[in-house]
């Protein structure tokens, strides 16, 4: 019980969950316009790498963030062009983007920094930690909420922002309509393609931030394939949350909670393999219990992918 009350557990959960949450929100936007984005993994990886490159080139953390966002947006623009304009199967292109990201980042790691495996520079400054003035003094809660990188707060904020955008604004309604029934929306004069491109670009920006949190958030380093499946987890979170920002937030937190609980349980004679397996098993179970509304299936059907 002590374990569950420990504030550092939740604090580490928030940190671990941020890349997943940001990417999953991007995935949700894509899903809402009928694009099932399997390329999240690759986009995060590109974000992580370009964040480091940006930091290396400019020496400024904020410019590095901007650089990461722009780089990933470039790739998501390509993704969007191929899927929307050339009408390629979105899942296949997503898989291809993942390969491209893996190849390109490892190659550029060698080409730019001339190292293999991982790159770290102790001179680099990572993202600052923000101690929130009043909140940090709240006894138990303060330790959890305060002292994170700005991206952690941004991720949480984005949940609300996207929720309001999707369900409370006209533009958000049109975005959902574009995914729900592209033909009907087109006949009403909604520019479906434009919304699709917009969602893709926003997803790119979010994935860029997700990657930056990964490479600049705590360690200020890049290692090959450092997204290590987070993009796929984000995909699961998107799916589990039925592309609703609140649902996506909740399912990301569930995953983050089980994975930080898992790493905590390692201390207790449980083999590490089982504790690392825990989040995946829990996610699978969660999928089993929340599977009624099939938003994603609809989204994919409208794009004629998978089946």
């Amino acid at each position, binding site marked *: 019980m002590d374990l569950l009350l420990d504030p550092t557990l939740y604090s580490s959960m928030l940190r671990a969950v941020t890349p997943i949450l940001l990417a999953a929100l991007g995935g949700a936007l894509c899903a809402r316009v009928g694009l099932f984005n399997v390329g999240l993994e690759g986009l995060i990886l590109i974000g992580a790498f370009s964040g480091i490159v940006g930091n290396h080139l400019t020496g400024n953390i904020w410019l590095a963030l901007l650089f990461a966002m722009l780089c990933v947006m470039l790739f998501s623009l390509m993704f969007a062009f191929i899927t929307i304009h050339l009408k390629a199967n979105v899942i296949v292109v997503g898989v291809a983007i993942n390969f*491209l990201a893996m190849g390109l980042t490892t190659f550029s790691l060698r080409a730019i920094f001339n190292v293999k495996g991982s790159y770290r520079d102790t001179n680099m400054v990572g993202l600052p930690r923000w101690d929130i003035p009043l909140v940090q003094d709240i006894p138990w809660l303060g330790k959890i909420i305060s002292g994170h990188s700005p991206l952690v707060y941004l991720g949480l904020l984005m949940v609300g922002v996207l929720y309001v955008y999707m369900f409370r604004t006209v533009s958000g309604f049109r975005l959902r309509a574009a995914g729900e029934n592209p033909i009907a929306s087109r006949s009403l004069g909604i520019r479906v393609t434009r919304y699709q491109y917009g969602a893709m670009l926003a997803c790119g920006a979010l994935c860029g931030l997700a990657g930056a949190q990964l490479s600049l958030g705590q360690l200020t380093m890049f290692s090959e394939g450092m997204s290590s499946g987070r993009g796929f987890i984000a995909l699961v979170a998107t799916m589990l949350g039925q592309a609703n920002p609140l649902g996506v937030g909740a399912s990301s937190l569930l995953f983050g909670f089980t994975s930080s609980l898992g790493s905590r349980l390692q201390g207790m004679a449980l083999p590490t393999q089982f504790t690392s397996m825990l989040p995946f098993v829990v996610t699978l179970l969660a999928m089993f219990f929340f599977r009624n509304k099939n938003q994603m299936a609809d989204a994919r059907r409208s794009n004629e992918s998978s089946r």
Partner: protein
Amino acid sequence: MPKLSQTLQSLLQPLLAIVVGLAVGAIAILIVGGSVMETYAEMWNGAFGSFYFFTNTLARATPIILIGLGVALAFRAGFFNLGAEGQLILGGLSAAMTALYVPGPGWLKLLLAIIAGIVAGGIWSAFAGWLDTRFRMNLLITTLLLNYIAVFFASYMVSHPFMDRTGSAAMAQTLMIDNAAWLPKLFQGMSVHAGFLFAAISTILLFLYMRYTVSGYEVRMLGGNPLFAAYGGVNRGRLMLISMFVSGGLAGLAGAGEVLGTQYRFIDGSLAAPGYAWSGIMATLLASSHPIGTLLAALLLAALQTGGMGVERNTDVPLEISSLIQAVLILFVSARISYSFIKNRKKARAADGSSS
């Protein structure tokens, strides 16, 4: 005549992709300051330069072909089986366990180990299929999640209960399999093993199955148009379970082949690290799920990978050049850029003015 031009067109696409891939590779080589011709010469030598390197390429292609075929079958039926990695690993693990702990003569162990590999991979894959048909859980996601579970499970098995504690090195691996139960090498002293024959035979069988059997037709129909298939009385659930079982079984066979033919034990991470599973998926995508095409694409990818090692050995250009070329290849083919670009142009011109 349309038949011929169709064949030409389907050939043109991958060839064009290879050219573009190599061109992008050349740009990358120039960026890191290498010599393009020299690098590609080294790549060719690394892949086909001598009989030894050639058999190396075949050995590397073996699991890629098998996995690719499995994924191709599932793709053809309309299912995205991204769980090849987990199926491969469980196949390898079960084969190792069977070969180690089942009593009997060597040939029997070998046979049972191969069957165990196929069954383990098949069941793991069919489980995802079952979750989809029975509970409508998205196959793409479940296969991905099951990958992680399989990886961690196998890692646990070989680092705790079945760990090799005889040697001084505390590696996460099983004991060495008795050499009576090894898959024979095809050539003395070369790395290609009998698993390659399995891969070649499976390719032909799958090709014949898809082309000439009723159930092969049902699979293609299900993938091509699920509604039409349902109307024609195809039982989607049953067909899904079967095709997923075979798909995973082929990946399991790939794992068994690697364990029984190359490593002779299950080493934690040794099946995941070379990226066989994703290469297999790539091969399938390159060949748009055609069995023989998948075999050729797998050979191409394996050649790029072993060639990349040659480049790494003999020039300053990093090994990753080959993953870059592979990625460009796959992106180009998957998007069918050239082809659909032309088609779109035509369409846009025909429907001039209308927005879409």
